[in-house]
């Protein structure tokens, strides 16, 4: 991963058409501005992950399959609760 140090107000260019500007840095985090062509999809990464995960979750087969997978993966509640750690 390319790592750059930028101060507030400074920018980074990606290719000819995408500009990322560091607008401000606060206690809560860094505020960035993104200038990109309309057709470029800009998404928070966790939103993309959530979309993918939801799509996967919606693909569930039968309840039986699901329960078998859960059983296979773990005993959940009671066993977690009584786990020595």
């Amino acid at each position, binding site marked *: 991963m390319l790592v750059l140090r930028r101060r507030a107000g400074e920018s980074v260019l990606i290719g000819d058409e995408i500009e990322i500007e560091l607008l401000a840095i606060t206690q809560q985090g860094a505020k960035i501005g993104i200038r990109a062509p309309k057709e470029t999809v800009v998404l928070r990464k966790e939103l993309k992950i*959530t979309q993918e995960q939801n799509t996967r*979750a919606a693909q569930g087969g039968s309840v039986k399959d*699901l*329960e078998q997978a859960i059983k*296979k993966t*773990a005993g959940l509640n009671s066993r977690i609760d009584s786990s020595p750690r």
Partner: protein
Amino acid sequence: MLAVETKYFGTLSLAEESVFHFPQGLPAFEEEKSFVLIEAPKLTEAPKEDAPLVFLQSATRSSLCFAAFPIQAVDKGYQLAIAAEDLEDLGLDVERQPDLYTEVMVLALVSLNDKLLATANLMAPIVLNLKTRCGLQAIRRDSRYSHQHPVAPGVARENTAEGAC
């Protein structure tokens, strides 16, 4: 009463009040604005204590149904960190996290990973406001919990302590 065609349980007749409204839909399913919560372990074979599985069924699209666990069933010590904007959208106090039992129900959606093991999404739980019947998927801003948390004892413990993925 409201007749809801479900993916797994045929047509269920439910009270209008049992519908939860999702004004923003869910990521990847933005057009789905209303869901019903099916808490009927007796419909399935698993004993209730072992797998308190619940189902979030789209009220308008029968083929869309998510399986989920109450988040505390996956991780007893789960710490909520709902962002202020999400609290506001839910109509909750933005100054504090809501009470898990009296104010909100929080669900972790279940999916099967590539190895066909069950995982729960602890990074982006579904939060339901029990009073207003309004819901949304509250994506955490931190990386404390995994979006593919294995539903397993021991493993589950270790992952939540350090925050894997």
